[in-house]
């Protein structure tokens, strides 16, 4: 059998996290009773007109700049025409001729070793469609327009991907970029990130691509990996059997683990694209693009490098924190307050993760004030509370969003900072333990630890151990 290589390109669709839809002011919030997040515009009533949400344009530019794209300063919308009940206007407003971003790239690890660039052909803005729901009870199909008009970006790569691993890394990189750029929360389970996968195979070293097939709407990393492996194997089998790969659209069934043909190239729909006359072309000035570039949030690569180089975090810890934007935000706030990246990281990967685990909470759903964690670390490091108390305070913060300082005060968890009070307590302990004092003075070191223990007990653990040790040493010398 000849050696084959995979040629794969991806079209990644991502929902933007703007508050309102692309052409009207309806909410983009996920869920909701059917047809409650709709108005006359997104439901395509006659006579209504779209007006572009400027946030969508800004997010698209941000995404383009974050993926090394050129921004198309004069870009425009086109109509893609087809009939389907989830598309109330019977056309989708998209960008075919002049997409907003072009010619970018994302760097990934090559399966052959080293880094490689996956080129991005274009990124365009478009509107999402609604959802059909088959109602088995009444045996009819119902349509929910809540998703109609939710803004999407379609990120189209060149066929630069040569393995399932590379494809997954490319999508992971894209997801990180989109989240760090603050344009999408990329919740795959809500369909806010999904990919169309184009696959072909060719003998290794060939200059000519094989015939490709497309699998649409794959929405998990695992499924992307599986689909590419399975589809490339199917194509190789066909070629080895002397059969032909047909250019077609296939549906990937992830539960069954195989794809089946949906429609061939001959049946491909003619979408009759033409410029959307209801929207004037978008003209983006240099100043506008530069202002977005200047305010671009720190992207994943840069952020990770900074955590490792400047903060001295391990690659592993960096990866854990950067896996979640809420954790990144909490970490950065905590560092800002404590000026102590190591302790901040340890707390987040320790107590915070533990609480998230114990309570089965997603980081997005943490409700406490972000400053609280830093405040607790400062109380601990400043000797104001003990480590045990710090953990208790954090639990209360996590569960009830209490104010750490107030909580410590109220629950009498504060450390004694009054040296004279500590001194008198230690003096009492020395009086009551003459035997141990004498043993220590005759050279038995272990008795010193015993005396510390007794003193701490007398102080009910509320004095800093360092202070107690210091006073004890003074009194015994």
């Amino acid at each position: 059998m000849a050696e084959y290589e995979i040629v794969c390109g991806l079209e990644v669709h991502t929902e933007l996290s703007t508050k309102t839809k692309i052409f009207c002011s309806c909410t983009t919030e996920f869920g909701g009773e059917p047809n409650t997040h709709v108005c006359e515009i997104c439901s395509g009533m006659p006579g209504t007109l779209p007006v572009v949400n400027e946030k969508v344009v800004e997010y698209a530019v941000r995404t383009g700049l974050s993926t090394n794209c050129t921004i198309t300063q004069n870009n425009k919308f086109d109509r893609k025409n087809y009939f389907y009940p989830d598309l109330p206007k019977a056309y989708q407003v998209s960008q075919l001729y002049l997409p907003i971003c072009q010619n970018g790239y994302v760097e990934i690890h090559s399966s052959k070793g080293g880094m490689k660039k996956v080129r991005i052909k274009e990124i365009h803005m478009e509107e999402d469609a609604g959802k059909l729901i088959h109602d088995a009870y009444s045996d009819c199909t119902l349509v929910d327009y809540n998703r109609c008009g939710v803004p999407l970006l379609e990120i189209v790569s060149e066929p630069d991907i040569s393995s399932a691993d590379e494809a997954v890394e490319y999508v992971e990189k894209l997801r990180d970029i989109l989240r760090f750029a603050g344009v999408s929360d990329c919740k795959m389970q809500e369909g806010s990130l999904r990919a169309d996968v184009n696959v072909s195979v060719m003998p290794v070293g060939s200059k000519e691509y094989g015939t490709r097939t497309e699998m649409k709407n794959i929405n998990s990393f695992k499924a992307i990996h599986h689909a590419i492996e399975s589809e490339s194997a199917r194509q190789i089998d066909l070629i080895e059997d002397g059969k032909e790969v047909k250019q077609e659209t296939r549906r990937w069934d992830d539960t069954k683990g195989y794809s089946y043909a949906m429609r061939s190239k001959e049946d491909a729909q003619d979408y009759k694209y033409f410029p959307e006359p209801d929207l004037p072309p978008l003209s983006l000035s240099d100043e506008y693009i530069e202002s977005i570039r200047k305010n671009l949030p720190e992207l994943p690569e840069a952020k990770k490098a900074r955590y490792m180089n400047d903060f001295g975090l391990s690659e592993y810890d960096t990866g854990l924190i950067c896996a979640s934007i809420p954790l990144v935000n909490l970490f950065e706030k905590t560092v800002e307050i404590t000026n102590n990246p190591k302790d901040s990281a340890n707390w987040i990967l320790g107590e915070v993760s533990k609480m998230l685990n114990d309570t089965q909470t997603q980081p997005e759903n943490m409700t406490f004030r972000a400053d609280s964690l830093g405040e607790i670390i400062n109380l601990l490091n400043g000797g104001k509370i003990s480590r045990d108390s710090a953990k208790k305070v954090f639990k209360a913060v996590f569960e009830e969003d209490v104010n750490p300082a107030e909580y410590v005060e109220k629950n009498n968890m504060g450390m004694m900072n009054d040296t004279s009070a500590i001194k008198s307590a230690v003096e009492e302990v020395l009086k009551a333990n003459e035997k141990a004092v004498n043993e220590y003075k005759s050279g038995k070191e272990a008795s010193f630890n015993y005396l510390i223990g007794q003193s701490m007990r007398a102080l009910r653990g509320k004095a800093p151990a360092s202070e107690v040790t210091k006073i004890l040493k003074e009194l015994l010398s």
Partner: protein
Amino acid sequence: MSDILNMKALELAQKIKAKEISAVEAVEAVAAAKEAKDLKYNCYTSFNLESAVENAKTVQKKIDSNEDVGLLAGVPIAIKDNICTKGELTTCASKILYNFKPPYNATVIEKLHKNNLVPLGKVNMDEFAMGSTTETSAYGETKNPWDVTKVPGGSSGGAAASVAARESVAALGSDTGGSIRQPCSFCGVTGLKPTYGAVSRYGLIAYASSLDQIGPIAKDTADVAAIFSVICGKDEKDGTSMDTTPFDISDIISSKSLKGKKVGIPSDYFGEGINEEVAKSVMNAAKVLKELGAEVEEFAMPIVKYAIPTYYIIACAEACSNLSRFDGIKYGYSSPNAEMLRDVYIKSRSEGFGMEVKKRIMLGNFVLSSGYYDAYYNKALKVKGLISKAFSEAFEKYDFLLGPVAPTTALKMGEGLSDPLQMYLGDIYTVMINIAGLPSLALPCGFDSSNMPIGMQLIGKPFNEKTILEAGNAFQSATDYHEKMPETV
């Protein structure tokens, strides 16, 4: 009461303001006129008397408490049936929207209310504004008040005929390729097709989005200017709308001279196919403009011959997409004979749309199909650019242009539909203006030997309606064609 229908809108508004006539009386006068005449002319598709009376009462209260109610308070105005009126039938004269009541008002309707006008009655049109005769309406054809055996023109035939027949005081129409101007010409009334973008299209059920404009139809230029000043302006709901050059209505009304104005006449507007009586009347009008002080000269505009194919390609392409939403699923007509989804689409659309609409949908789909897109649609866009350029070159020399609206006067009923090519060619002088997005005022300038009105158009620079409205008023202050009315009315 019949006096009220003979008044101009500004005149009626003055009498209402002076409390000589009440706003409710004005509405009732229109209702009475409709009752008396509409069986004969068939101008209206629906008539919302109750809500209009309520609105008139509200306006009257404001007048009675001496509020500042504006120039046209209390004036009833008829609305073309493709402009959305909240909670009231808006059908585009099509079976496919036979029961459609939009839950929103078009921006122009909101503006009419805000300025205390009273929308009253929806007026007939060619189905989805596709046609030049008002014969393709699902409600039956409207008759020309000057001769009921003739068409009123179209597609805003109901609007123009209602003004001519004294069934309405004024009306709003829409113009995609001449749909305001040509019926004005055929019915002897005055109408403005504003600059593309000068009036919000929000709530106008689209025929061809890049060409459609809403505009006023009335008895004279002053009324048209007053109504236009109420409905124009940038609308945040329409991304293609813009503010136009503002003007004071008194500037228009006091305009009696054209001294210092340079007027161009495109000689190619007088080529093959133009009726001699029409050509003569327009040339006579040119003399009047000269007498008013204007310098008038002819110039060549050879690109005229490409106007018709360019228009039909662009308009039909946009139309086939715009009309795809009428699919029998969400609102309007849904075929009772359909079971599966494909059937719902095919049968609802086949049974719901009329012939002319189907023809244009098919033409539009053809020019947009892959393989033909470049040969037709893309080429049409290029010619569109050339046509705009030809006009901007002309406007380097001239303040405005003068030409006929249509090559003929009103056709006999049935004549146009039986010879569609001839009917399409009848749009030759009007479609150019939509392609270039320019404002154009149509006004009467004579009568043919069978006493049918002849119209001319004054074509202006983009967003400069003021100049052509001033010229129109000057012309009408020197002539009385616009004062004539059909004898039988």
